């Protein structure tokens, strides 16, 4: 219709751009508001995934196998520890932390944040019960306390764990941020994968420390599956997101995602894990290998969340993406 006939040169200074883009937007001003979320939310999303994955692991592991029994125990302790820390991290990001409890005024199915908080609380309950059971088994608590943790809490923790790992993805994708909206299936799915992989990594780290090598193999195999799935989902996300995906997959941030998450965080541990199942390494070396793989996976998982949040901010700043929002 009307185009702004102003030499680009004069405007280059103010906005830091070298030329005016073809379709003028409103002074290249963002149309949407960027998330205010910083390290605490990133950490929360990341730990939420790991915590949820641990809940699932604690259920898959069987009581009648020693290695799996020990896995179950450490997974229960670890997920409970995370369930205790994570709300604190969540609270720390609130503008009015003292009002955290207002989250509990209502249950709102339309709000992933509301459901997530409730999921987190129920998860903590189940995790607490299961930990109490472990403690009772270990004789720390009197035996009769076992009655407080009926056997249902074990599968419940798995279900809630899966939810908690997945909702962090829905939390992002069900927003107006174009990048996140474009990943409405990919981000939740990738979050679950990353959560599972992270849980496996953390569990194998703990198992290595414990010397529970039998279970590390199993965990590593599961981690390969989860990592592979995550890689596939992220690659498909890039394809499906098209131009919405630019803030995440292109430029410096895309480069970081490729090197830190995809290569270092998924492909490298996958390779290390494959090596582990293919050849027997000497014990100390194998411990180093497992540890390295685990740390890389966890690192990759954190960077994935960080990239998602930061790219989300960049996506919010791009008015062209916001004018036509992904369905």
């Amino acid at each position, binding site marked *: 219709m009307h185009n*702004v006939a102003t030499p680009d040169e004069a405007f280059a200074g103010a906005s830091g751009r070298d030329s005016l883009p073809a*379709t003028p937007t409103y002074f290249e001003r963002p149309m949407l508001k960027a998330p205010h979320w910083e390290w605490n939310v990133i950490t929360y999303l990341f730990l939420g995934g790991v915590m949820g994955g641990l809940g*699932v692991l604690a259920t898959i592991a069987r009581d009648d196998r020693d290695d799996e029994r020990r896995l179950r125990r450490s997974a229960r302790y670890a997920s409970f520890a995370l369930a205790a820390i994570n709300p604190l991290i969540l609270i720390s990001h609130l503008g009015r932390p003292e009002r955290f409890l207002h*989250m509990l005024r209502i249950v709102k199915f339309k709000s992933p*944040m*509301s459901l997530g908080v409730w999921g987190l609380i129920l998860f903590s309950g189940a995790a607490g019960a299961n930990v109490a059971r472990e403690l009772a088994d270990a004789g720390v608590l009197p035996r009769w306390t076992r009655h407080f943790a009926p056997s249902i809490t074990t599968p419940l923790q798995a279900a809630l764990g899966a939810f908690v790992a997945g909702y962090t993805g829905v939390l992002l994708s069900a927003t*107006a941020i174009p990048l996140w909206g474009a990943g409405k299936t990919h981000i939740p799915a990738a979050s679950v994968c990353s959560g599972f992989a992270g849980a496996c990594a953390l569990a194998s780290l703990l198992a290595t420390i414990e010397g529970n090598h039998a279970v590390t193999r199993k965990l590593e*195999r*599961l981690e390969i599956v989860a990592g592979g799935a995550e890689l596939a989902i992220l690659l498909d996300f890039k394809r499906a997101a098209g131009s919405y995906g630019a803030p995440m997959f292109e430029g410096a941030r895309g480069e970081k995602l490729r090197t830190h998450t995809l290569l270092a965080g998924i492909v490298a541990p996958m390779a290390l894990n494959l090596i582990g199942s293919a050849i027997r390494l000497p014990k100390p070396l194998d411990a180093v290998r497992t540890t390295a793989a685990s740390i890389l996976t966890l690192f990759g998982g954190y960077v994935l969340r960080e990239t998602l949040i930061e790219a989300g901010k960049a996506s919010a700043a791009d008015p062209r993406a916001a*004018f036509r929002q992904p369905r």
Partner: protein
Amino acid sequence: MSTGFFTDTTLCIGCKACEVACKQWNELPSDGYEFTGNSYDNTSQLSGTTWRHVAFVEQMHVEETTIDDRWLMMSDVCKHCTHAGCMEACPTGAIIRNEFDSVFVQPDICNGCGYCVVSCPFGVIDLVNVFNAEASGAYGLATLNDQRLDDKQTAVQATGGVAGKCTLCYDRQTLGMTPACAKACPTESIQFGNLEELRERANARVESLAKRGIEASLYGAGDVGGGIGALNAFFLLTDRPEAYNLPVEPVLPSTRQPAGYTAAALTAAGLAIAGWMIFRNA
């Protein structure tokens, strides 16, 4: 009764009285003092403490001898959506729909999670910084000059850290008063009233403008699509919505949830089965 705004941009003279009246009535601080070079727009956007914002769009044909330059002005505000992304997202229930059918943030409930901020398809609602007179400079200097501000807690001081946006002057409406911005508007660019009536008036306005050879369209008087429905604060525009920094195809974020939960559940189930199999087969 459902009330709302019909903002007719063809009547807007860009005086920003609405912006100032809103800040004054609601005791909102300034957002800083940055010279942008973006026409006469130095506040740039709606924010947690700027609830009306006037956009300036210069469309000049510098070289031509015939003069049909345009300088479009539009006073933007929260749309008070029929299906409001912010309200659906809010985990505390701080955001409600009140008796005037407007979307209202209860500052005493909100805990500042910021989830509404990313859930508004129009980029309206935002968090308010916890008030700090010195840092914000808002009242600092004025206080030096005028002790009358001394012991007066502003609304922002009381509600910092929470989400802020237009209340559609809920307090004024309950007293039967017109919202401050509409009251201050000298040219009736901002028309407040019963929505039914406003929509009729808006349709008639488009027709009468057409008769004068002015192409205009309504934004949000009907369904804007994407599951959002109609907007209780709607606009008459004479250019594409993007020219005013409005989305052409906004989407209600919650419409993506079923797909998201399904994908997460299927993935989790798949991985759980994989794990189960790996553990059993080992």
